[in-house]
């Protein structure tokens, strides 16, 4: 029986956290948010230099749980870059048996080739302008890999400033089909995407809770730290209560996917639905807990608030996944 992080897993998180602290401090995030780019080469290369690109390759010796731990730290830092798309594209290409797609495997793993995830049926794609490849995952139609030259990309003013989306259109049957809609890998990839988004949400929710707690210890009113007042203390306790127990829900979904458990499909849906709700609630609570400073652009809480709005709607809303979970349970 083992259901907590190993020292090695904690070390992976520390390495990613350290790399992002160096390459993605708040000043960089501010500058990026006011710029035109949808990709930051510096932080991307630094992450890829850690060897993260191939985590979901079948021979990596790692699994979705490890990828989830990385996605959590990326969410915590509000880092840019299509990490989820990159990891899933490697997973798909390495298992897909398509020779042309296979040509990309090495540069995808190293991060030189950038791939982003397209939710089948959605026009909005994060980091689309920087992407060389698009992995379209559609539970019904299957999985396709499309080159940037086949995509029509239109920039929009994106709400999520750390992972800006563009509007993207593809000609019918563009690119190579890696898996059909009935291939088990299609559902596996779609499920992995849900768990990775849940992990991004977990990291962000934890981050804004930590920021709120730190602020409550430091900010003084009536001659004392405001965190001493029970009203705020209880609000912060509830934020923590929302986030910390949900961590194990993400771990379980990743573990179930790695172990191929029968409830992996449902666990992914539950994790995505629950964590995205938690993320939205927590970012709202964090801004409320901070008072005026929380409502400023400069302080930056809004980056996670915006990211929460993206995570919540991307790949299907919590209500949509709960409806799936209800059907999967046979209710």
């Amino acid at each position, binding site marked *: *029986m083992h259901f*907590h992080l190993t020292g090695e897993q904690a070390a992976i998180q520390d390495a990613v956290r350290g790399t992002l602290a160096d390459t993605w401090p708040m000043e960089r995030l501010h500058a990026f948010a006011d710029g035109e780019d949808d990709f930051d080469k510096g932080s991307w290369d630094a992450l890829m230099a850690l060897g993260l690109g191939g985590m979901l390759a079948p021979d990596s010796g790692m699994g979705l749980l490890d990828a989830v731990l990385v996605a959590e730290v990326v969410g915590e830092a509000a880092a840019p870059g299509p990490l989820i798309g990159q990891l899933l594209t490697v997973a798909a290409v390495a298992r897909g048996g398509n020779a042309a797609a296979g040509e990309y495997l090495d540069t995808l793993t190293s991060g030189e080739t950038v791939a982003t995830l397209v939710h089948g049926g959605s026009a909005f794609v994060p980091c689309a302008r920087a992407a060389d490849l698009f992995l379209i995952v559609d539970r019904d139609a299957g999985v396709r890999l499309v080159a940037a030259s086949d995509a029509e990309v239109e920039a929009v003013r994106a709400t999520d400033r750390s992972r800006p989306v563009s509007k993207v259109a593809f000609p019918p049957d563009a690119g190579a089909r890696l898996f059909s809609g009935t291939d088990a890998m299609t559902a596996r990839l779609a499920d992995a995407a849900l768990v990775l988004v849940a992990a991004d949400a977990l990291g962000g929710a934890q981050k804004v809770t930590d920021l709120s707690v730190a602020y409550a210890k430091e900010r003084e009113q009536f001659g004392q730290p405001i965190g001493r007042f*029970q009203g705020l203390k209880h609000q912060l*306790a509830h934020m923590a209560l929302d986030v910390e127990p949900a961590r194990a829900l993400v771990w379980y979904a990743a573990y179930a996917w790695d172990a191929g458990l029968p409830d992996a499909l449902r666990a992914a849906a539950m994790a995505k639905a629950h964590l995205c709700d938690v993320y939205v609630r927590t970012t709202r609570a964090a801004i409320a807990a901070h008072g005026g400073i929380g409502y400023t652009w400069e302080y930056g809480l809004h980056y996670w608030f915006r990211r929460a709005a993206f995570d919540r709607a991307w790949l299907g809303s919590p209500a949509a996944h709960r409806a799936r979970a209800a059907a999967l349970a046979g209710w």
Partner: protein
Amino acid sequence: MDLSYGEAAEAFRGEVRAFLSLHWPPPSDTRGADLKAFIRTFRALATEQGYLYRAIPKCYGGSEQPVDVVKAQVIREEFQRARAPMEVGGNGMNMTVPTLLEKGTDEQKELFIRGTVEGDYIWGQGYSEPGSGSDLASVRTKGELSADGGKWIINGQKIWTSQGMQATHMFMLVRTEPDAPKHDGITYLLIDLDQPGVTRRPIRQMTGEEGDHTFCEFFFDNAETPVSWQVGERGQGWYVSRTTLKHERAAIGGADGLGRQFAKLVDLAKEVGRIDEPMIRDRLAQIEGFVLSHRYSSYRIFSNAIAGEDAGPVQLMMKLLLTEIGHDMALLAQELIGEHGFVEPAGAGGRGNRGPRGPEKWLDQIMGSLGNSIAGGASNIQRNIIGERGLGLPRDLAMSGER
């Protein structure tokens, strides 16, 4: 991660199953006193095997086993599966015995532990008073030494004592040093409740229940207890009362119970014909997100316990999480039972003679879930604990003297 318990644990599970298949259940016609005697013998056999009372030394009727949270979990699972009785429950096993093992004299251990383990002594908790709830260290029930110095003479009132009507003994906090600082003037006493100076009265609960299973209040009018029944030093009772049972405490049991209750809520939605409504399905799945978070967090805490590591703040959250989920389930249950809730269930409160019960039986949970937010550390106290011990926020000035 790996949720299996491992080969050694599965071999052990086989042993426990073999034991249970030999000794449980009793023959189907066993009733009354015979059933009681059968259970007593069964517990003695299970203790002999090392399955029950693992933290208690053999000389006091326990099985004195080394700490092994996995074995303890396997035992719980198999006993539950076989619906076999485990240790006697209640305050005696949860509070008195661990306190005596850590702080009691040899004479006190000798006198009380075996009787408690075997179910002969039932303990009431004498902590809260009408004026002392969350602010427990403000207790005013008075203890004074008799002229010869051999007895404590007790005067005052205690309240919210569960199992109070059956209790044979009480462990209590009394103020013995009225001039000492709040926390340093309290002494921890054991007392025999069968004496003229003790009056008890059941308190009728919101469920309508009154009697054997409800909580009680106690009045002490020159009640007596020998000085040798004082646990720990005079004036140090507050610190004695902080002793808790740590042995093999991590368990997945709470999560299993919650999971079963959630499954029943789904069954209720089916029973009343509303399972196909999207709003009901969404609310069920929302609640299940918390139910599963609780379940997997209990796996996490259990896994940490096996490794001898501290699971961190999540442990402080489990009680409040359970309470909050209970509230959410109550709200949905209330929606689902509709007019069934106009009629009180048979045996309201979950005890007594039940007979057939329909959806109205959820009134027990709807009311009982409120009890959970009060008993064993009220929810606002839990929020303080999470905020202060978990998040490191500064203590409320009014409470900063507490330890």
